[in-house]
């Protein structure tokens, strides 16, 4: 790649030193246009980088107010709104509230916490991963090791593409309609993780199939020559070879699911304490869902907690993404 760059530079350099004056005037205009075009491309990158920087600085700046270990583990305060209202003497006299009560200092001021959402995110995303990753890899095995170019495999491949494109909220509606309403199972961490698994499945299938394709056929042939059947070849040779790639693909899918809100909206219910959120079959909450709730809550404490939760979520998603990238980079090098 470096070679190409230098070659290209030298080609352009040669053009910049014309021998003919007539050509030179034309080249000047052309060069100007070239410079403008190059500038526009660089500008496009800056334009796209701006929102990222803005989001990063805003979230980090605002999250520092509440961030800390206790914020991540404490229950979500339920009486924050009440305490804020009760302590506001100016409002009490303006709106005919209780002017005596506002002078009393509350016994314990509510402190920000997001523990249940952290626990809930780990549980739902973990469950979704348990459901989607094995099935997704098996489906990829079918596509790459058995189905290949058969009509059925092609259909599955096309439908997987379709499923990648199905909006996440449709997954939410689907699980809500089937699991919550028709089957009467109610909202739960499990229901939410089924919705998230539906979202992850096609992503895992696609990335895993790409990774299996990269496994050299010589390995399969060698294994077969030694008398291994396809299942043994797949389990002993193909999957281990592709493992880092499979892991990185799966992690990206997990990262995507962890940040999703729409599939969780109608399927998870709510939880305010860590104890309540430590459940599979009961109602729970997740970071993204909690942020959505906190944004629209108003008051003073809620926005602060939303920033803190957003910071936590970004760090979680980022960590998963970066690890996945590191793993896949190592895989590509081999």
């Amino acid at each position, binding site marked *: 790649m470096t070679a190409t760059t230098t070659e290209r530079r030298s080609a352009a350099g040669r053009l910049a030193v014309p021998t003919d004056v007539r050509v030179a005037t034309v080249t000047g205009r052309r060069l100007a246009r070239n410079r403008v075009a190059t500038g526009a*491309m660089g500008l496009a990158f800056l334009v796209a980088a701006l929102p990222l920087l803005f989001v990063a600085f805003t979230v980090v700046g605002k999250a520092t107010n509440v961030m800390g270990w206790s914020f991540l583990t404490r229950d979500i305060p339920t009486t924050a709104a009440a305490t804020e209202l009760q302590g506001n003497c100016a409002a009490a006299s303006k709106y005919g509230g209780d002017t005596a009560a506002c002078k009393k200092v509350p016994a314990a001021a509510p402190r920000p916490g997001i523990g249940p959402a952290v626990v809930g995110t780990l549980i739902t995303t973990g469950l979704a991963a348990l459901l989607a990753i094995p099935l997704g890899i098996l489906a990829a095995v079918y596509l790459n090791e058995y189905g290949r170019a058969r009509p059925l495999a092609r259909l599955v491949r096309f439908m*997987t593409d379709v499923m990648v494109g199905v909006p996440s909220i449709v997954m939410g509606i689907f699980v809500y309609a089937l699991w919550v309403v028709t089957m009467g199972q109610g909202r739960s961490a499990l229901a939410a993780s089924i919705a998230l698994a539906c979202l992850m499945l096609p992503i895992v299938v696609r990335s895993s199939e790409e990774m299996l394709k990269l496994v050299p056929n010589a390995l399969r042939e060698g294994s*077969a020559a030694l008398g291994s059947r396809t299942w043994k070849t797949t*389990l002993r040779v193909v999957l281990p070879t592709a493992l880092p790639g499979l892991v990185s693909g799966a992690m990206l899918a997990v990262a995507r699911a962890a940040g999703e809100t729409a599939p969780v909206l109608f399927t998870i219910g709510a939880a305010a304490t860590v104890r309540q959120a430590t459940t599979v079959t009961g109602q729970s909450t997740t970071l*993204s869902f909690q942020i*959505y709730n906190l944004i629209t809550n108003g008051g003073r404490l809620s926005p602060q907690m939303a920033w803190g939760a957003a910071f936590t979520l970004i760090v979680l998603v980022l960590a998963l993404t970066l690890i996945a990238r590191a793993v896949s980079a190592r895989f590509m090098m081999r």
Partner: protein
Amino acid sequence: MQTIADPEAGPERSALSATNGSVPDTAFRVLALASGLLVLVILALIAITTTQKAWPVLSKHQLDYFFSTDWRPNEQHFGILGFVWGTVVASTIGIVLAVPTSIGIALFATEVAPRRMRRTITTVMDLLASVPSVVFGLVGFLVLKPRLQNWYQALGRWCEGIPILHNVFGTGSSGTSLLTAGIVLAIMITPIITSVTREVFDTVPRNDKEGALALGATRSEMITGVVLPHSSGGMAGAVMLGLGRAKGETIAVTLLIGGVSNPQITVNILGPGDAMPSAIARNLQEASGDFRAALIGLGVTLFVITMLINLASRRIVGVFDQRLKGAS
């Protein structure tokens, strides 16, 4: 190449199978096949359950459900065209802003930037892609909305009296509007379009590019003459992918599009509107009866649009590729 790995490749395989008991192999194959079929099953289930739940309203309103802008849950009348319009307008704004930016970035990364910088660009795009939707919603709702309101009102006043601009940038905005939603969508789909177009640009043969440069073309001429024509099919595919993502984006749009109880077809992009996913997100929890059916019907519509976009993008990419082959 495939014959050996393929379990059903004819007589040689069955000869081999005699040595190893075929039970685990069959079991494994069935398991893999079942997992593959699961995708089909889930898609079928999505189509069936959602359509079934939406059926009471779909059968009652029939085509009126899709082509009426009359959405009055209290009077049990449901026409979704206003929401479809909101989705179309916001997605179009998103695409119009994101496509030039993405192509610019992709070209910058493949043709201009030094190698070390390429990695930075990829990282920035990956990071941008990994920011959860709700975080964009949070920043937009709590930080940007008040500022946007002032800017929009200034823009609205400035455009007052100018024929077409006056309609597009009408007054009375609270900062959450079709335009705000479109801008957020643009930010969210830029990384997707960028990464796909980059891959496409990377497939342009080096000989063609160097040939153009050797003939005395400047870099911008080389790009317009060689890179872009070669990549038209892939770029169209990337745009469709971005569109697919934009139409279903829920949370950020819900928080930033404004929210109108009965959205109409309007060109005022500074005014509030509503999109299909947002209407579902806002109301499904509380809805019951026909209202719930109508909201699930919005989901069915989104699902059908997804199918159509997928089919269309195959067709479009195919046509472009064929045209290219014919040309060269």
